[in-house]
């Protein structure tokens, strides 16, 4: 096999004595995302001594290592080798799974729904319609606790973060900020606008992996009524297909 696409340009930055930041810097954000996630998979599979792991996000990858075993110089060479391999073998192909997420919107479940509607100059119903209109690619697992970070719904305007972040946002909170969307797997402080809540259990700290999705999988929200919420409680988020 040979490479089918032009290699994405990549820069490697020092990030202390135990990490490197790798940034894909092409104008094509999809290519950047694909490059850092493919590189993360390659690094995991190659399993170099002293490399703890890689955290890919949108256009960036943090590679963490043990400076007692290896060094920033060696890991940089290893990363560049991985990039050459990717150019040669191409990105690993994996069929994305889709997850279906029931959500109660507004009220006590989504205290910021009206604020978001007002900011977007749309009705609450239009906000819900836009949020449930498409399926979202999970771009990366973020803080806290493996949150599925997604490109946001097709709202007219970016959603501003709360001026005073909440000290505690419940598990299952469905939130938006800027041009991003997320579900909170665990109770944590948060400054994103919460527009709804899913009754499903996203995080299971007793099993590995802790969350059922991986970057590249898709997620679709559908609306349920408040009285249906209790019926879903205790069920785990599972792939529909």
């Amino acid at each position, binding site marked *: 096999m040979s490479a089918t696409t032009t290699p994405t340009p990549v820069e490697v930055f*020092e990030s202390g004595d135990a*990490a490197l930041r790798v940034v894909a810097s092409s104008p094509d954000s999809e290519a950047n995302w694909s490059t850092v996630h493919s590189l993360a998979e390659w690094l995991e599979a190659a399993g170099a001594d002293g490399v703890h792991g890689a955290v890919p996000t949108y256009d960036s990858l943090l590679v963490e290592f043990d400076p007692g075993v290896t060094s920033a110089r060696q890991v940089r060479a290893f990363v560049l080798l991985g990039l050459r391999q990717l150019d040669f073998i191409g990105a690993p192909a994996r069929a994305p799974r889709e997850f279906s997420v029931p959500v109660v919107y507004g009220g006590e479940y989504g205290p910021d729904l009206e604020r978001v509607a007002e900011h977007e100059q749309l009705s609450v119903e239009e906000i819900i319609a836009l949020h449930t209109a498409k399926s979202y690619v999970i771009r990366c697992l973020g803080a806290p606790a493996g949150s599925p*970070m997604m490109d946001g719904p097709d709202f007219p305007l970016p959603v501003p973060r709360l001026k005073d972040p909440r000290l505690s946002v419940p598990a299952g909170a469905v939130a938006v900020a800027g041009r991003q969307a997320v579900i909170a797997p665990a109770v944590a402080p948060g400054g994103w606008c919460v527009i709804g809540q899913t009754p499903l259990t996203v*995080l299971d700290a007793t099993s590995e992996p802790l969350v059922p999705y991986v970057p590249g999988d898709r997620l679709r929200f559908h609306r349920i009524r408040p009285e249906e919420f209790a019926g879903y409680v205790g069920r785990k988020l599972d792939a529909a297909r």
Partner: protein
Amino acid sequence: MSGSLIIQQPGNSVVTDLGRFRGPRFGLPVNGALDQFSARAANILAGNDDGAPLLEITALDFRMRATTDILIAVTGAPLHLTVGGHECQQWEPVSVRAGETVAVRQITGGLRAYLAVHGSVEAPVLLGSCAPDTVVGFGLRLAEGTELKTSRSVPPIRQPYFDLPLFRLGLTRPEFSSHSVVEVTDGPDVDEFGDTAGLLYTTEYTVSARSNHIGLRLGGDLPERQSSAEVLSRGVPVGAIEVPSREELLVLHRGRGVTAGYPVLAVVTSRSLDVLAQARPGHTITFRRTTVPDATAKYRAALRELENLRSTVSTVFALLGIGSQPGWRQLAPAAGS
């Protein structure tokens, strides 16, 4: 022979280890002992593997009782250690007889102490580590009456000659002071701070009381970001120094959220993260700029010192007949054995 440790006064204590190194790829912080050197040293002095579960005791007084004869070692911040009412030395193996109480009091100068038990203690494991994770609600936080299972008993070893130290192990103990110098390397986003980045090296910062295992907040003159462009969330290393507000500098430690959207001004070296782990609210800090190769060399020098300690401890323990093999081999039986 197995036994238990019964916690009588938990203070603020947990069972932890060196961290959940597989966590970040799943969105979980590494966590684990904040002062890694002291934690490794405690385990080595107790004849354990560096990464064995041990107790991290933060700031407050702590007491426990052993139900069998055990061997322990206490390291970290200066404190007052007694076993069965008798004063004992930190940074040395210490015998505890069945029924005796181990008391850790007056943690001063630093913030965190480490107590390792020969043969270690049992703790639940997530992704290969027992380190508590406050966000996912995992881990063993000690409470009054908590019973910790130990796997090995060690008959009492008492110095036959009065008042002479039993062990002379030649470890250079870390220094503890209310003013610390913390070494950092340039962060990947240092250019975003323009000329103001230099303030980091000319300012004396004060540790705020709002500091914890997630990060330390430091007050003082703040470098200022010169642009306001939105930053996409990305992985940030432990030790990252950010300026999220106009009030404080934020230095991320081992409990940090794995991803964030703030520019990274500088990154604290692995060695200096241990220094920060011991900084108390009100302590002052100045930063010194270094390079990655220099930081790596210092980190490796500390590891060599710990290796020397391990070889001394193995020799002494063999002479005293403690553990026919290092204790950790019993914790992880080889496949097929």
